[in-house]
């Protein structure tokens, strides 16, 4: 864990009546270092929060937005839930799978993109949606999806 990350985490503690409240925000900060949280970092976080490493690992593996294995430089996620599916979300994902030559849950061999599907993102009125590194791309069609993905470095 970098010193700067640690300092940021230290400043979070006062926001919560108990130290542990800062765990999720802290894990985001640690994850920002290399795109996932490894075992060494998890142990460091555990020490900082005075909890066991297994408790940190439980939290990391419970939530979709934390990763314990390396991810691609960009994360591309499609909502596969009903409102998006009704408007072609899953078809779109299949197109992108073919385009990138990988399946959802995989990373391109060059480490550029990790592709996945996730649950409802709250864009039902602007479906289908693709989430790229935290940004929403809504009312999407296959061509726009390809264009956005191809522009990723």
């Amino acid at each position, binding site marked *: 864990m970098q010193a700067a990350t640690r300092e940021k985490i230290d400043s979070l503690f006062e*926001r919560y009546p*108990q130290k542990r409240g800062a765990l999720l925000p802290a894990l985001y900060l640690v994850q920002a270092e290399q795109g996932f949280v490894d075992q060494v970092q998890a142990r460091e976080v555990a020490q900082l929060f005075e909890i066991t490493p297994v408790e940190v690992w439980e939290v990391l593996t419970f939530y979709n937005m934390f990763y314990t294995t390396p991810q691609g430089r960009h994360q591309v996620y499609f909502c596969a839930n009903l409102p998006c599916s009704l408007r072609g979300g899953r078809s779109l994902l299949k197109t992108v799978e073919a385009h990138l030559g990988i399946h959802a849950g995989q990373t391109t061999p060059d480490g550029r993109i990790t592709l996945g599907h996730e649950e409802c993102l*709250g864009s*039902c009125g*602007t479906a289908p949606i693709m989430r790229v590194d935290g940004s929403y791309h809504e009312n999407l069609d296959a061509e726009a999806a390809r264009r956005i993905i191809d522009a990723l470095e």
Partner: protein
Amino acid sequence: MITAPHVTGYLSEHYGDDAYRTVAGYEARGGFAGLSQALAMQPQEVIETVKSSGLRGRGGAGFTTGLKWSFMPERSDRVKVLVCNADESEPGSFKDRLIMERAPLQVLEGILIAAWATGAERTFIYVRGEYQICIARLEEAVAECRERGYLGANVANKRGFAHDVVVHSGAGAYICGEETGLLESLEGKKGQPRNKPPFPAQHGAFGLPTTVNNVETFAHVPFILERGVDWFRQSGTEKSPGTTLFGVSGHVERPGLFELPLGTPLSEILDLAGGVAGGRALKAVIPGGMSMPVISPSEIGVRMAEEFLSEIGTHLGTGGVMVMDETTCMVRVACVISYFFRDESCGQCTQCREGTAWIHKVCERIERGRGSAADLEVLADVPGLMEGQTICAFADAAAWPIQGLMRRFRPDFEAHIQAEKCPFPGSFEL
């Protein structure tokens, strides 16, 4: 991105206006008038006002807000807290996102009124992790409120009324929308719901007395204080007063949000959304977010309030209306729904952990044409083993849609078993 509902009302009148997100712009459009009204009253009077307004929570369960506030211990040697449930994750719901993106100060004003009423010193706004823009907008609003004296010591110059707000990001788990799953998550744990009792008002976030309200619920509160109970009760129904933001998605011409009085007929909402897309016929509607049982075209005359929807075996939930046209394979719908609940079950209770996975596997197999009559018995029975028997209502939410589908669209399932394949080639792709 949606910037305003297709139909606006008192809540969303200024949503299209960027200035509404700044304190000055908000004040200029009537903002904080409800707060000053509240601060001129005794806390108990504020609770009574909200109680008599009949405001019901907009997070899905529809509990009376004022009553919930009254559960907070009046005197407590422990700090009291509020939690704003901004973990909107119910498939088909996207209203809270709009409120936070376009009117974060409405939410904060509602929070401050609730804080005054309940004596809470701190609020945690738990926003689902994917809602990055909401988090940013709320944080901007919180920072500006601090600068302008709407947060901190002596809120709005009211001596002795201190309040602060922490915007907290979730990390991707539907179950954190459940009140106590949210509290666990806020405490830095897995979002696994708690056994009740104790209830949050006694033992909530970090063991402190806590009241949890949904984003939209907070947003309505300033208007009730500013304009009065009688005004509020003019819209909506006797049992469900006020407006709500109905979200319409799926096979309609004009999906989006519609601020309409509770009790508006579903057919009217569908008309406002331009009807079924492409002029196709309607097959099914899920009226209140994905946890709620589906209804048939013959039932769309129903008025959209809990008291009417529950009469026909479904619920208002979060008011997320999902529309399916004649091409739709209801077994595929069952696959999507059951996958979601399997994926999002927290895994604590036996019935939920095992039942959601079992139902999903059976649905998938039927869709592949490998189902049997015995599978229909399983789909008819297993939801009953789950419903009402677990720590939280998630298992109910997983059971109800399957029960609804089996009740109203069993022929779709039977057709798959008979044809040994999906007989709806034109349906949305799985």
